[in-house]
Structure formats: C-alpha cells, structure tokens
C-alpha cells in the first residue's frame, strides 16, 4: 500500500538541520527494540531519507531480563545523502536499562545524546547488569554525553492509566513512549506508525489505544520538557526518481526468487531446513503459495539439497537456503549436482563460525568452503550480494547463469545483509526482461537421447521427465562424454573434468566489465559481499583527503571477472578487506601473483568505515 498523505504538525521548538543521524535503540530482548527500530526506519524512508540499518540481537530466544546477554539493539542511520552503511559512531543512544547502556555506550560520539529510562536503574537492575555503581551518577559520563533521564515507566503508566489495564501490560507500551520521544526529536511523522498500530493490533483495540497514547505521550514529553532544547531535521536525500520501499536483505532475496521464477516461466520450489539467519527466507516464501511457490521443510539439510536436485530434474526452479553448518552438510549433495549438471541455487547466509560459532552474528568466512568444500574436482560458480536491496538482482542473475550453463550455483549473503534494510527502487514489472528456458522436445526417431551432448556454452540439455523419447539415467559416477553412460575410461575422465571446469570458467564471458570507482593508480581496495558499504564509504572518505584510492567490489567470486588481472596490475598496492582471515586475497594472490594485502576482521561484526579508512591510510 502507498503512504497516505498525513496531517502531521511538526514541533514548535527550534529545529537544527543536519545531513544525517545515527541512532541506536537498545534494551531487553523483550522491550521491542527491533519493532521500534523498524518503525523509525520506515518512517525515515517514507520522508525520503536514505536509510541503512543494523539490527543486533542475542542468540537466545529470551535471554534473562536485564542481563548483558539479553540486550537487543537496533541501529539506524537516516541521511539527506546517499549512504552505504548504518554509520560508525552514534549521534544518539536510547538505553532502556543499565545492561543496554553499558554494552553500547562505547559507540556513542562525544557530546552525543543519551536517553535512558531513569526508572530502570535501581540496584536490582544494576545487579542484573553486573554493575557496581549507577552509571547515571558517573561524573565522566555526565560530562562526556548529553544525558536525558526520562521516567518512562511512570509516564507510560500515567498515559494509559484510565484504560484500567494491568501495569504488566501497561509497561509493555514503554517502547512506544520511547518511540514517540525519538520521533519528536527527529521530526518524524507519527502517522505511519499510528497506521501500523491500527493494523497490528486490530484485534486488540485496548492494546492499540494504549500504544497510541504512549506514542503521543512520548512525543508530547519531548515537546514540553526542558530537557530538549531543539529538534533535528534531516532533509530528503536526492535518490534517483522512482517509487521506493524499504526492504530487508532476506526479503529482497525472496522477491528476487519469485521474480526470477516468474520471468523464466518456472515453478519455484524451496527445499530447506531452518537455521539462523536463513530461516526467514523459508518463512517468507511459504506465504507466497498463490504465486505457485512450493516450500518443503525437510528433515535436514541433506534432504533439503537432495529434494532440490529432484525438483530441478523435474524442471522446477529449485533452490535451497542455509547457513554455515547446514551448508557443510550439503557438500556431498552439491557434488552430485555438479556431476548431474542440473540448474539450482544454493544460498549461504553466512554467520559467525567455525562450527555452531556465533549464530546471530555476521561473517564472510564460508567463501573457501563454497568454492572448495567438495570431494574431487567440483567447480561451481559463486556470486555474492553486496547489500539488502542487491539481493534481488543477485538472485535474478544467479538463476540466469544457472540455467544458461546448466550448473548449480552458490549465492552468498550474510547475517548483516539478511537483517539489514535499505530503501529499494521498485522496478516496473513490465520492464523486467523475460528469460525463457528451452527444454528439448519429444523425439520419436528411436535414436537414443544424448544427455551429455553440449551446446556452445558447454551446457547439456535439460530434458524433462514426461517428454517421450528422451528417457535417460544420470548419476554420480563419472560419465561418458555425450552419451552420459558410466565410464571409467581415463581419457574420458580427464576430458569431463576439463569440460566441467571450462564450462564454469566460461561464465566470465558473461560478466560485465569490472566497474572501478576511482583513479587508475595508487591503492586499489578490492572487496566482495556485505562489506561493500563500509569499503565504498571509506574509499570516498580517504579520497576526499586527496589520496589516490580506487575501489573494485566483486559480485562474482567464481569465476573472477576476466578483466580483473589487468586492473590489479595498474595499482601500486592492493588491499582486500574481508570479514574472514583473507579468503579472497588468497585467491587473488594465487591467480594473479599480485601481492594483495589482506585486511582481516573476524569479530562477528561488520566493518566500521573508520576501520577500513585507517587500513587504507596504513598502506598508502
């Protein structure tokens, strides 16, 4: 639905215009910070700001109240210019309790705004957060930041008092009070959120009313109390014209899948087993049955990949989604897909490893696994999305390549992209390019069908069960060229190994020329995947200081673009920032014998722009 024009009266207090603001909302998992953050994001997007978000929640469903482990955070940056990251330092931090404060304060800029619920800092709360003294009384903190203590609990209770609901329920509205206050502070329109409340709580009128009141109470608190001298205004960003919506990575991925299926006239089948942070793709897709989407929650990841191979054999657009440990389990099945040369997509929404690792944190440490984690010579194309919205295009390109070359393909995303959000320019459906897929037709000449007779792309025919005269058997044993019969012949094996490799290498011919951002000399920063924003921003920053720094962001990890070697040679230094111990840098060094320097971070967290900028400064 489109945003209905709102009758929204801005604050009467003086307001200061700024180019961008970074806010983090932190509280208990139960405090509804994620909801608060999403509302602030959408509302900001609706007024035309560019936005970028970074939700960060604990691995436990509901870690104990008030503890540091239980803190859930949501960071959002909204700006009047194009932005690529949710920002490094915070302009404002809303901390609903001591644990939230202590675990997030380090990121707050000097003189930044610190809004706390002053009523959640009693001894019990401090003890839960394992804190000796009350930070609010801390001299230093009071000097360093603009602290605003708000008795949110009682104010919220007051606002909903005459609705006669239990204080337990009443207290649940606290986040809407905080929301109102934040909305006031940044001159955001409350109407979209009011609409949201109406829908979300349509069945519970009293709850809806309570939240509405809390929201307004928060807004009015800002307007009336001395605490706040002025509000801040962030003008709309100059985004390319068009209709936009705010979209999350996994959401864009789902839309991309449905679109790709639609454009290629295929039925979409997902075979998957739940795992963080990939589960939402299964959840989302299962809601699109009227698009002809079939989802299968398998008994495990092995069954998932195998079901997908079966569906692909049958002619569906078949995909499977997982993360680290689940992807490892699929290795054997994917190896078979390589041998069968059937098109399908495997999504690895990377998380912190090794083993179970850090399930809710982000990392790029599966690259080598998806490239080489199979027995034998088993080449597979690998493509990576660079941002939430980019997942849409990545999926469409992946499916085009998978079907053109008849190959399984890996699409890499990560927890940061999956749960992050950004404004996304909605394409005109009618303008999207159809990609029809040809299947061999029935043959009645009695000649045996040749399942491994290849076309110019070295792709074999995708012959579908049900087609008369094309009956054939395929399997995991090495097969004879052309006929596909089992063959143990040494020369044939060599030929097939070479052919499978060549087929994937040829995909490079389909990859558009590499776009280089910046000069053709000096330092080249090469990145891939979710670090795009931090790297691009950092490069621009350093370049502003007159340094010669260029940026290449790779969408394709296998094959690498054919022009990459030439580009690399132009630069004195090559820096490869990765959220792993240097996977891409190893590939580049091996392939091009270029002394690429790895800038590695493995902390379960995305790069801060400043970190990358410093690394660049270092090697200049």
């Amino acid at each position, binding site marked *: 639905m489109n945003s209905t024009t709102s009758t929204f009266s801005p604050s009467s207090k003086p307001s200061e215009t700024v180019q961008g603001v970074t806010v983090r909302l932190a509280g208990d998992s139960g405090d509804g910070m994620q909801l608060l953050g999403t509302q602030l994001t959408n509302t900001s997007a609706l007024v035309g700001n560019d936005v970028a978000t970074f939700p960060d929640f604990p691995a436990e469903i509901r870690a104990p109240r008030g503890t540091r482990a239980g803190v859930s955070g949501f960071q959002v940056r909204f700006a009047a210019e194009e932005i690529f990251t949710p920002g490094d330092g915070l302009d404002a931090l809303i901390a609903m309790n001591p644990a939230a404060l202590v675990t997030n304060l380090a990121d707050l800029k000097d003189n930044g705004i610190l809004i706390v619920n002053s009523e959640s800092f009693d001894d019990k709360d401090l003890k839960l957060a394992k804190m000796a003294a009350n930070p609010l009384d801390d001299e230093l903190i009071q000097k360093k930041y603009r602290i605003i203590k708000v008795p949110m609990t009682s104010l919220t209770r007051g606002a909903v008092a005459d609705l006669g609901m239990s204080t337990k329920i009443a207290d649940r509205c606290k986040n809407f009070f905080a929301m109102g206050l934040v909305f006031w502070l940044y001159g955001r329109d409350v109407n979209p959120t009011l609409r949201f409340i109406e829908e979300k709580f349509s069945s519970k009128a009293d709850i809806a009313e309570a939240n509405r009141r809390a929201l307004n109470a928060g807004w009015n608190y800002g307007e009336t109390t001395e605490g706040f001298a002025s509000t801040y205004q962030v003008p709309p960003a100059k985004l390319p014209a068009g209709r936009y919506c705010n979209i999350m990575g996994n959401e864009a991925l789902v839309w991309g899948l449905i679109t790709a299926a639609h454009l290629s006239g295929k039925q979409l089948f997902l075979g998957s087993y739940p795992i963080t942070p990939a589960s939402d793709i299964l959840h989302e897709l299962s809601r699109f049955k009227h698009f002809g989407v079939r989802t299968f929650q398998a008994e*495990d990841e092995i069954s998932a990949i195998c079901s997908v191979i079966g569906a692909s054999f049958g002619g569906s657009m078949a995909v499977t989604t997982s993360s680290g440990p689940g992807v490892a389990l699929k290795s054997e099945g994917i190896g078979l897909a390589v041998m069968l040369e059937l098109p399908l997509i495997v999504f690895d929404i990377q998380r912190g490893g090794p083993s179970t690792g850090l399930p809710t944190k982000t990392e790029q440490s599966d690259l080598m696994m998806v490239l080489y984690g199979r027995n034998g010579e088993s080449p597979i194309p690998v493509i990576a999305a660079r941002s939430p919205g980019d997942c849409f295009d990545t999926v469409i390109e992946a499916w085009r390549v998978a079907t053109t070359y008849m190959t399984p393909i890996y699409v890499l995303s990560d927890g940061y992209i999956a749960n992050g959000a950004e404004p996304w320019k909605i394409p005109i459906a009618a303008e999207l390019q159809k990609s029809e897929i040809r299947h061999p037709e029935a043959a009645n000449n009695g000649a045996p069908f040749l399942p491994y007779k290849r076309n110019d792309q070295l792709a074999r025919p995708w012959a579908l069960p049900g087609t008369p005269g094309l009956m054939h*058997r*395929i399997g*995991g044993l090495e097969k004879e060229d052309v006929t596909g019969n089992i063959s143990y012949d040494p020369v044939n094996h060599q030929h097939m190994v070479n052919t499978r490799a060549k087929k994937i290498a040829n995909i490079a011919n389909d990859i558009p020329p590499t776009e280089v951002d910046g000069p053709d000399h000096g330092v080249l920063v090469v990145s891939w995947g979710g670090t795009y924003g931090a790297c691009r921003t950092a490069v621009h920053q350093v370049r502003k200081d007159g340094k010669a720094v260029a940026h290449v962001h790779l969408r394709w990890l296998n094959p690498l673009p054919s022009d990459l070697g030439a580009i690399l040679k132009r630069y004195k230094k090559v820096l490869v920032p990765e959220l792993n111990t240097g996977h891409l840098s190893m590939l580049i060094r091996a392939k091009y014998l270029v002394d690429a320097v790895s800038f590695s971070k493995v902390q379960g967290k995305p790069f801060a722009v400043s970190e990358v900028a410093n690394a660049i400064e270092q090697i200049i």
Partner: protein
Amino acid sequence: MSVDFPVLKPTDFASDQDIRWCPGCGDYSILAQMKKVLPTLGVPPEKTVFISGIGCSSRFPYYVNTYGIHSIHGRAPAFATGLKSTRPDLSVWVITGDGDGLSIGGNHLLHAIRRNIDINIILFNNSIYGLTKGQYSPTSPMGHVTKSTPRGSIDHPLNPISVALAAEATFAARSVDVYASHLIEILTRAANHRGTSFVEIYQNCNVFNDGAWEQFTDKSVKDDNLLQLEHGKPLIFGKNRNKGIRLNGITPEVVDLDGQVAADDLLFHDEKAPESQLAFLLSRLRTPRFPEPIGVFRAVERPTYDQMLNEQVRVSTAERGPGTLEELFNSNESWLVP
C-alpha cells in the same frame, strides 16, 4: 488412464545398458518382474522415474528405460520427495538396499513414509553390504560374521516392516526375489497404492551372503517358514496348510489345525485396519518360533504429501488470485521520489 494408451511390453522398459550384477544375484529376478509389472500400469516409460541410492541394488535404474537418477548413498527418498512434490504427474519409484535405506538412509526413509508422499519404495534386503564387498548391514542377524565383524555382529538388527509401520506407513508389504508371481502382485499393488508404498524384498546375495533366505526358498522347508497374508483371511500356513496363528491375549501362538482348533479361532488378517498394531504384531513374527509373513501387512488411505502441498497452492491461488509481480512489489509501504 491405461485405456487410451498403446499396449506396452516388458521390452519397452528394457534399457540398452549391459547389466553389471554378479551371475546368480537375486537382483536379476526382481528386475525381471519389475519389467513385467511396468507395462501393466498404464504409465508410459517417459512418465516413470526410478531413483536409487548407492549399492548393487541401486544400479537398478540403469536397467530400465525410463527417466532415472542413480543418486548418492541413502538419500533417494529425498530426491523422490522433491520430484514428486513438484511433478505429481510422474510415477516415482525408489530403489534402495538394506544399507542404503536403513543404515545411512534410515531417516529419509522414515520421513518420506510419514509424509506419505506418493512414491513406491522398494528395499532390496540381502542383509549385507554387497557393493562394498561384504560388511554386515542393519538387517544382518546378531553374531553374523562378516568382513567387519570377524567375531560376529553385536548390533541388534532392525525389522524393516516394523520401522515402516512406526513411520506411520499407509502401505507396507514383503516379498521374496524368486517368487515371481507373488512379487509381481506386490509390486503392482505398491504401484497402485496412493501414498508411500514400502516393499521389503528378501534378496539373495550369492557372493557375500549366499543362502541368507534359504529357509524361505528351499522347497523342503519354505512352506513351514512362510505365511502368506491375505486380507480378511485367517492366518494359515504349512505344507498342508494345517497350521495357524492364534492370539492368546495379545500374544500370537502357532497352533495345529487339528480337530480342536478351527480356522475361525485363528487370527484374521485385516490390511485395512485403521490402526497399525495388527500389522506391527505380524511384522514381529520371526522364524524359528513363527513363520514369516509375506504379502501386504497394511494398506490404508491417507492424503498424500504432494496432494496436500499442491492443494494448498490451489486454494491460496483461488482465494487470493494468482500472484503478480506488481502485487509483490507493492507489498511494502512505498513512497515516490520525484
């Protein structure tokens, strides 16, 4: 369906591949009977798919001229599930072995059966790992001396039919490789059952476990060791059909059909029993104490997974209309940048 369809011959289902099983292997007979059954089902070769795992038995798909996948070890039911869910128009068979289906593949078997996906799972039980040259399998008896158990197996064997029933099977049956006509009947019934049909076939591996099923194939003793299940009929067996199975409480016992005991006193088979305890009880009958039943243990109706999955798609589409990209792209709140 078979009506308007040209008559097919076994040769229509014979592939051009030369067969790589050992001479004398029980697999040959099963293949032969399958080739006789397929033409009678009214399903053309191009609508038929055989999916197998890895093992001697799993070489099967190469020898029938249909579509087929010789997949990986133990996972055939998963491939079949993906295929049948998206292509309910196909007739999908899974060929597996006692190692492929019950060792590495036990879990997929379990889940395919409980979902009642409309496929036919044929388990070639030779109580040994054939292709890897003779290790004991999940159906090998305790004490079985094999390459990997020089002092005898210490693993209590699984009973395939019991496992299938506990997996909520709607169809479970057993036959023997060399019983051509019986095997034909069972394979035909499995093919015609809607839902997962599970068939265990006693198959002789004459190289690594020869004679494992001798007691059921040796003319001189087989009639006393086998019990042919017939729906609605009392459980009678024996060379001169003079023995029967009677219930004592819930405990079965073998009785002689002399003057004392009449056929009516015996336990009657009911393959359509809504609950599975009778079928389960029958699956527990083992020699030497009892004859071992062959035939259909259980055959009941239950909606199939593929049917329900596609029904949900149909209903959603009917309710909400076929999805369009416009609808998709506008499912989030949006704004216009001029």
